[in-house]
């Protein structure tokens, strides 16, 4: 199961299912991603213009038609742009630095998200990436908040 990864902060399916040590695990926002396997983003496909949207929409933001249906976006893609965030942005309670970038999903859209690699020098253009679920922070009540991120694909 390639999505269970020895990357800091990556939440395995087992943790999501059982809640690590009984803690509740909640996504930062409903409807963004599915932990899988494989972990993937939840998007929309427009039957009018054919374009894919993320996050999920009812009305297509590209053509304005109400012909969108829910789809699972490809779990893998290629790195298109990247940097690292070194100072906590407004409203963020997690650790810094963290990776930040854009991945072009296979035959799909370009998506903005966190990257599991916080060192820009260890990433390269067009590098194969996969969707993973990571821990953002643990609340005072012990609730583990997760989000989607992109991780370099480790060769099998």
């Amino acid at each position, binding site marked *: 199961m390639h999505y269970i990864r020895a990357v800091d902060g990556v939440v395995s399916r087992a943790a999501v299912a059982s809640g690590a040590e009984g803690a509740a695990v909640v996504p*930062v*926002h409903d409807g*963004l991603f599915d932990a899988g396997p494989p972990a993937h983003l939840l*998007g929309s496909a427009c039957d009018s213009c054919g*374009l*894919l*949207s*993320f*996050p999920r929409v009812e009305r297509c*933001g*590209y053509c304005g038609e109400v012909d969108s249906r829910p789809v699972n976006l490809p779990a893998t893609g290629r790195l*298109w*742009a*990247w*940097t*690292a*965030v*070194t*100072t*906590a*942005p*407004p*409203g*963020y*309670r*997690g650790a810094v630095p*963290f990776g*930040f*970038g*854009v991945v*072009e999903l296979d035959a799909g*859209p*370009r*998506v*903005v*998200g*966190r990257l599991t690699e916080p060192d*820009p020098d260890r990433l390269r*253009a067009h590098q194969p990436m996969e969707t993973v679920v990571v821990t*953002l922070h643990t609340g005072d009540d012990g609730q583990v*908040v997760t*989000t989607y991120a992109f991780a370099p694909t480790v060769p099998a």
Partner: protein
Amino acid sequence: MTTVEVAGVGLHPFGRFPGTSVSDMGVVAVSAALAEAGIGRGGFQAAYCGTAYGGVASGHRVLGKLGMTGMPIVDVEAGCASGAAALMLASSAIRAGQYDTVLVFGIEKMPKGMIRSSFFEPWQEEAGLAATPAYFALRAQRLMTTSGVTKDDLASVVVKNRRHGVHNPDAMFQTEVDASSVLTSRVVCEPLHLWMLCTPNEGAAAVLLTAGGPAPGRAAGRVRLAAAELRSHLAGPVLSESTPMSGTADDSVPPASTLAATAAYESAGVGPDDLDLVECQDTDAARELISYEELGLCPVGGSADLLRRGDTARGGRLPVNLSGGLLSKGEPLGASALGQVVELVRQLRGQAGDRQHPGARVALAHTVGRGANAGVSILTR
């Protein structure tokens, strides 16, 4: 068709002024513009105030302090282009014959640090995605990939604009910096270092517009506002200033700045080759270079060449940001676009002091930011 002329301009310096309210800064800028135009109470029929953080009835608070209310006062928020939006509305109203004389001003007092904006949803903030400089950094990295721009080029933009800013008494920073200091300042988001980013700050600017006669035979010294256009983004580019969470792989969709520039060139009947000087959005060093390409000052991919030739430096073929740009002045969102107009009016009148570009006749001002909102104005004499 009615033409639009600039009858007066005024500025409150850009910087940090802990003891001065945002309204009082507006009073300084508006009073100066009215005094220059020789216009007093009752002399204008409408007012448009650009501000992003000013709050409810910002414009009323300024004009109330001056005892100049009663006319329509409209507050306009359009992110970094708030002042450009106010200018577009005022200019359009005069062109349409609605008013003869309209006051346009912009005021801002920004919180320190990374800009917090209601633009992002709570989950985006919680996930760390409201990292404004990170989006600038991703655009910078793409520019380095597509246009051969290097980090040395990014440092050169800062060195150039800070050198220009030395001659601007209204700028927040009036000292030169060298490239090595820029490149050894703290990395905010690779490839952008701290000194490559402008400082959100405070300030105000005002412009009084009047209906002019037919284009030929304008009053001596009068500057004409030949175009004031505002555009928003088209869906598609993932790194658009609209800050979407996704985009398409289609790189042919024009950005908001190109849409605004194209409209402005058409309105003014000029093209990029006719320009004598430009004030453009330099929120960060890469943004200035992106602006060169989006405004058509060079071919797409040609920004590094334009910079390296020295064309956009003082004394060059097409000086950009002779005021010092936002990198020297700082960026008070509501005031920045009108601050550019104030600078260009002074340049076109020959009143720019030590930073005067000789013989300037056609000038362009450009702002772009969250929304996306892009404003492009063209001034002529």
